[in-house]
């Protein structure tokens, strides 16, 4: 389904990505343009149909004349812009970011419900993470199995907040939110109550489907069995947009 036609005031700009001449509407982000043109940029928190938060920093790019790295998801294209998406420096940063996600919580892929269907695993492979160079924190996190259909394992959570956003922006329930700072930061249901006791959760399962890792899963799945389906999201998001 096509997006609603842009209003007449939206200009089209021309710019270069990795030397390639491109044009797009000026209200598009670098990441959107790259996705459209199949220019690969890793991302984790970004998801088509959800609001943009620029949290994971995996989509950082270099823009000529700008001394710092910019997140492609939160940076709009502009006339004459020259973007590099795959430099040695960017690869180094991305690899380090992915390694830090592995070092922070407890990822044991071989026995994880999401093994083989996990975005973090896939990112590790594409970013060349064959081992994690920093020491593992080895702090244990809780697991909540109180919901009759779903389960949250905070050991696998990367705090992308996709669950929080889909629940609020698409389902309209706002069961999920974020609590705490630093290594204590975690996603919570209602006011940090067991998910099974939630009075707001509609059990729609959207959070489970958008979660990139094995953090949110269906009950009863064992190693490698949790395959997610995210096709519904852009469709729902567009319908809501039109309405």
């Amino acid at each position, binding site marked *: 389904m096509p997006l609603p036609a842009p209003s007449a005031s939206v200009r089209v700009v021309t710019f270069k990505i990795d030397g390639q001449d491109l044009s797009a509407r000026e209200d598009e982000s670098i990441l959107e343009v790259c996705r459209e043109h199949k220019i690969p940029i890793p991302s984790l928190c970004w998801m088509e149909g959800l609001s943009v938060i620029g949290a994971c920093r995996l989509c950082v790019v270099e823009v000529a004349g700008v001394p710092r790295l910019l997140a492609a998801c939160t940076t709009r294209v502009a006339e004459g812009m020259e973007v590099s998406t795959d430099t040695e420096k960017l690869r180094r940063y991305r690899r380090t970011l992915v390694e830090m996600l592995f070092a922070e919580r407890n990822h044991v892929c*071989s026995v994880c419900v999401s093994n083989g269907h996990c975005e973090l695993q896939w990112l590790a492979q594409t970013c060349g993470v*064959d*081992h994690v160079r920093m020491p593992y924190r*080895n702090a244990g996190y809780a697991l909540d199995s109180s919901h009759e259909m779903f389960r949250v394992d905070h050991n696998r959570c990367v705090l992308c907040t996709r669950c929080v956003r889909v629940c609020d922006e698409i389902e309209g329930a706002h069961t999920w939110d974020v609590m705490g700072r630093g290594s204590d930061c975690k996603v919570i249901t209602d006011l940090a109550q067991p998910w099974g006791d939630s009075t707001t959760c509609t059990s729609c399962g959207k959070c489970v489907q958008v979660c990139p890792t094995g953090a949110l899963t269906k009950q009863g799945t064992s190693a490698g069995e949790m395959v997610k389906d995210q096709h519904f999201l852009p469709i729902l998001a567009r319908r809501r947009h039109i309405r």
Partner: protein
Amino acid sequence: MNSPATTAAPTAAAQPATPPAPGKITVATTWLDGCSGCHMSFLDMDERLVDLADRIHIVYSPLVDAKDLPEQVDLGILEGSVSNEEDLHKVKAFRKHCKLLVSLGDCAVNGNVPAMRNPFKLDAVIERAYRENVDHNPQIPTEGVPRLLKTVLPLHAVVPVDVFIPGCPPCADAIFYVLSELIAGRTPDPITVTRFGA
């Protein structure tokens, strides 16, 4: 403890029974805290092992009879994480005597299942394994077993590692690719053929 790797000091008897043929790459392997699955995956190379046998000479391994690690080995391959004092000895001996060290499999590369005890205190883990879950005559073994380390570590947390092959276990094709590249004198990039949990 008188395990093979802790007596890695070279002696005349420590040399392999048959000296490696010239032109062949010498290989040593052993397992630390793993399930031996990576070694099984090595054997899964099936008929390719016949070709490999022309190019490598396994001088020390659970797969052969030699009891001692030779003084100088071209390629050391280690499976399993570093979980006890014996593992620590073995990994240090391998680093000392092997020119190139390969970390084979998720346990060696990232701790994997053995490292799942890390968020718990060691005493609690031992209590659980040897007392709480035991019906008959529970006791904590202290003799003839190496002392457990407080934290299970990947190899590269203890010694420098040259090549990492993640996977649980890495498939035979991945192992074959890495060995072939190394034999050809090239630097393999194993992450192109395997990943964590593969």
